[in-house]
């Protein structure tokens, strides 16, 4: 019997919790009605306001496929991250971690080309032809290995072992001629795929004009004979089969930015 006796009055725990529950101030019912009305009117106004704000976003004029206000936010985001990240580099990995990279995009490289005939045009900011180079010009530059996690904007990633020349080394040849030019545009020989880059990202030591993957010359479907590679932007920026390198004072057109993506696509 003694084991089953009911507690005499509330336990300490009950008192503690009750004190918590009753810690809020009280008001009269009349005051409650007044405040309730006000709260529900505010709530209704909030619902309408949120609905109107959503409509406003959805009915904005679009800029390259997305509402202007979102495009502006993407641009502002880039400013934030560029200011935060002066000179940061992605981690590099041991070569043994590298795996073959999957083939994703074929725009601009659908037909195979004769690699012996391939050249790249280098153009200045006024459209003038600075150079027309074959592969030996890139092979003559200091060669680097870059084992990094390549990230696709779709969400997959893989560790890739690229080999080639830094764009910054390539750029030395033209630095005096083109001056402080803010952008570089690149395109496939047929012009179907094109990307735009800001000069700071191009000059990053991890931005490579890649000739090789895992020590072998690139396959055609991976962008032979010369493609861009970087761990610091999504794969959509890593143009395959470079046909033109164009210094530019204007922001160059970008295939995927015209199709609603962020122009910078930075990581």
């Amino acid at each position, binding site marked *: 019997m003694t084991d089953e006796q009911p507690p005499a009055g509330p336990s300490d725990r009950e008192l503690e919790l009750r004190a918590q529950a*009753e810690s809020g101030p009280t008001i009269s019912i009349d005051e409650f009605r007044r*405040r309730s009305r006000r709260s529900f009117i505010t709530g209704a106004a909030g619902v309408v306001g949120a609905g109107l704000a959503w409509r406003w976003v959805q009915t904005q004029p679009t800029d390259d496929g*997305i509402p202007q*206000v979102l495009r502006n936010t993407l641009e502002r985001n880039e400013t934030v*991250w560029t200011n935060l990240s002066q000179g940061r580099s992605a981690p590099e990995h041991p070569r043994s971690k590298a795996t073959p990279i999957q083939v994703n995009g074929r725009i601009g490289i659908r037909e195979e080309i004769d690699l012996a005939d391939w050249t790249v045009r280098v153009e200045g900011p006024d459209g003038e032809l600075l150079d027309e180079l074959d592969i030996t010009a890139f092979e003559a530059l200091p060669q680097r290995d870059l084992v990094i996690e390549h990230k696709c*904007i779709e*969400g997959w990633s893989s560790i890739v072992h690229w080999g080639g020349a830094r764009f910054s080394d390539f750029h030395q040849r033209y630095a005096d001629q083109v001056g402080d030019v803010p952008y570089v545009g690149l395109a496939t020989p047929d012009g179907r795929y094109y990307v735009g880059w800001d000069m700071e990202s191009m000059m990053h030591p991890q931005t490579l004009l890649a000739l090789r993957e895992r020590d072998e010359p690139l396959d055609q479907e991976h962008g032979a004979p010369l493609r861009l590679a970087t761990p610091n932007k999504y794969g959509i920026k890593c143009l395959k089969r470079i046909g033109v390198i164009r210094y530019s004072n204007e922001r160059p057109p970008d295939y995927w930015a015209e199709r609603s993506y962020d122009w910078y696509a930075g990581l």
Partner: protein
Amino acid sequence: MPDEEQTIESPVPVARLQHPRAIRWLHWINFPLLLVMIWSGLRIYWAEDVYAFGVGSWQWFVFFPEVVYEKLDLNRHLARGMAFHFSFGWLFVINGVIYTIYLAISREWRHIVPDRRSIPEAKDVVLHDLHLKSDPPPQGRYNAAQRISYTIVLVMAAIVVVSGFAIYKPTQLYPLPLLFGGYQGARLVHFSMTIGISLFFLLHLIQVARAGWGNFRSMVTGYVIETPEPVVAEPEARELDVEEVSS
């Protein structure tokens, strides 16, 4: 209690503040922001929808069946999904940070964060809710199960934000992705937390529906109506208890 005399004669109902204004605003602002984040996040996930429950090649449940994407218009909108996600994400984060700061400085967290005794109490809450136990355990402003689940969802929200940043800027925030075992690890954690938050949200809707109008109204107005128990009744009850004990 200044009104004690009055209470004895006829209990006058009063309204007691349950949810401070800041919590109400932040809660309701969070609601549409969370929906936009989940919606735009699923549009991003669609582009590489690799997660499933299963063993080996046998998949018991796939995230998500094609019909889900089609019905909810989540397919082929990766770019728009990203634009919305990386715009509204700031609002979601700012709202959450203000909420966290408010909880900390107002000491409101004490109503939410569970203590040592909340776990056995939460078990009783669940049994009571399932009609397997008649009396609910004692509770403060929130019952023990609420305290535990509200705290878990806050932790999940924090993880979803940190893992989200790790995916968004893995180079610029390096070594943040390492916290989740790398870029793909961060992606899995981000997705799992989203599923967790979504399950909480579903359960929350069910419980709000069950709790009824007075409870819902309190999240809008801040107040719950209380009818104080007449204090005269208590001594009698006490006496009864004493009698029983003495027998």
